[in-house]
């Protein structure tokens, strides 16, 4: 048998094509309500991107980090200031540079990972969450000395064309997410990803194979923060359309952590599944509350039920399927293809028996 060299198998290319057709052709044709774009699809793409960032550091490199929202804030405010002060950079240029600024913070706050691990590292990385938000609040310069506390995000202009409708913004998010997802997949499947996973699974052995722990961990934190930074910028400019540090509080960090764990640690598609689940589940629960119980259940109770179910699911997944929903999806596909195969065999047998 010839070994597989290619990064992409035929199946991957088909998956990519299906996703692209769905997101570029099917969704814009069939979904016309603005609500879906502004409240579901755009935040889904942004948060999925941030979750990929969390996956890199936590799922692949095995470093418990809890500060994704801090890096998102860094990216968002960097974006605001870049567009404000360096307009020549353009939207895409600003997006990349704000990602890089977030990455610089990632390197800084990733350094403790060399000395502490596990739950202690999680506490150490919380520093990023609080420090970045504090810094933005403390120094007026970051908010351009706006006293109201909430700054309106500038309009998105790419190559002279404004992108202001929900559909246009959706396409901006989709394009950025697609490119960054592909890059993340390349890294995860290539030698870079192998180094991450080697550090995750057995750091001493990795070091004995010549994998530098310092380089690999810092690299993972930087890449993770880059993804979070870009995601944060998109989150502020396409979804919130405003900038306020409060939007990037620790609750958002936890949300991204949940997305990462429920979706499946160490998977890229899990980031999308997890983000979709966490975003859509409250919507579904509300719909059930309104349509089945006709508002008999109070909205506050529904949101409490949501928390209870998330917590329960986290525990269930941690015990029974640590690889999350991505693994469930994989198992389902495998079962379906097995069924398909067995039914094919049956057809073949019956056609053979007919012939004889």
């Amino acid at each position, binding site marked *: 048998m010839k070994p597989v060299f290619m990064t992409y198998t035929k199946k991957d290319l088909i998956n990519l094509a299906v996703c692209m057709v769905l997101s570029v052709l099917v969704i814009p044709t069939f979904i016309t309500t603005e609500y879906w774009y502004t409240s579901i699809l755009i935040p889904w793409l942004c948060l999925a991107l941030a979750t990929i960032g969390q996956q890199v550091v936590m799922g692949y490199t095995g470093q418990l980090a809890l500060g994704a929202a801090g890096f998102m804030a860094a990216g968002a405010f960097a974006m605001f200031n870049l567009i404000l002060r360096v307009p020549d950079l353009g939207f895409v240029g600003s997006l990349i540079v704000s990602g890089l600024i977030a990455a610089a913070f990632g390197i800084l706050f990733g350094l403790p990972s060399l000395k502490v691990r596990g739950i202690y590292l999680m506490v150490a990385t919380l520093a990023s969450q609080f420090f970045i938000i504090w810094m933005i609040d403390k120094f007026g310069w970051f908010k351009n000395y706006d006293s109201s506390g909430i700054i309106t995000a500038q309009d998105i202009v790419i190559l002279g064309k404004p992108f202001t409708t929900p559909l246009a913004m959706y396409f901006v998010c989709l394009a950025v997410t697609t490119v960054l997802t592909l890059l993340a997949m390349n890294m995860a499947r290539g*030698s870079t990803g192998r180094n991450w996973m080697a550090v995750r699974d*057995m750091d001493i052995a*990795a070091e*004995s194979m*010549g*994998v530098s722990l310092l380089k690999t961990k810092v690299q993972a934190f930087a890449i993770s923060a880059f993804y979070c930074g870009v995601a944060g910028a998109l989150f502020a400019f396409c979804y919130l359309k405003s900038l306020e540090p409060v939007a990037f509080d620790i609750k958002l960090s936890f949300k991204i952590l949940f997305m990462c764990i429920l979706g499946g640690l160490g998977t890229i598609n899990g980031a999308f599944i997890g983000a979709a689940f966490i975003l859509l589940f409250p919507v579904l629960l509300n719909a059930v509350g309104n349509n089945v119980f006709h508002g008999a259940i109070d909205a506050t109770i529904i949101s409490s039920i949501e928390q209870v179910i998330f917590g329960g699911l986290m525990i269930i997944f941690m015990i029974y399927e640590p690889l999350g929903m991505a693994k469930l999806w994989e198992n389902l596909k495998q079962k379906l293809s097995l069924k398909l195969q067995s039914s094919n065999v049956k057809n073949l047998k019956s056609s053979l028996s007919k012939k004889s």
Partner: protein
Amino acid sequence: MEYERKFKIGKPILEVNNISLSFGGVKAITDTSFNVLEHEVRAIIGPNGAGKSSMLNCINGIYKPQQGTVSFRGQQIPNITPNIMAQMGLSRTFQNLALFKRMSVLDNILVGRKLHTKTNFLEVALQLPKVKKEEKLNRDRSEEIISFLEIEDIKDTPVGKLPYGLQKKVELGRALATDSTIILLDEPMAGMNVEEKRDMCRFILKVNDELGTTMVLIEHDMGVVMDISDRVVVLDYGKVIGDGTPDEIMANQKVIDAYLGVEH
């Protein structure tokens, strides 16, 4: 049985000089010196707790000995870390298995190709042609090792799901993938049955014979040790009590005492 070796045993490649290591008040190794010659199979034996694994950990840089030095190709290495030793061409396996459990067999062995991977993460992200070329070379080499170790049928299985004997084989494969000049094997045959042991011996001898890789191994099975090693060093209570060919060791009264106990 005497046979003509392709790689004649040469000069000392690795020298351990007066190493002393203690953990708090417990002395693991005391003033130990020995050397390893190029292309030889060198065994380190001794009763449990004699300091054999600690010795390998000192050579490999996982432990920092309080005294003594390690020289590689006649050069004293001042600041040993596992990473530096890997770059100098020294690879190893671990006593209690240190595989990347959630990765496939192939991926584990590919990690061993790390030092032959020069492309950085940006190039990998963009999948530049040179990344693909390098990846193909590394994969070819890994596949070669996999077929050499006769583990083709499990190459896509996550290592954590494999039985112990196979995991030991994968770990040897990962060490081989580095193309190191010297490989330290910490109890490569522990927990194996006779057949698996025979296989493992065959692989070790074959690698030594065909590639000239210097092998340093810790082993408890005396039959195996006496069969495959060129020279044996015996440790007891962290000290060298015997050093020589298998025949010399078997005739060494101190060694016999250490293993069988002395009448008082």
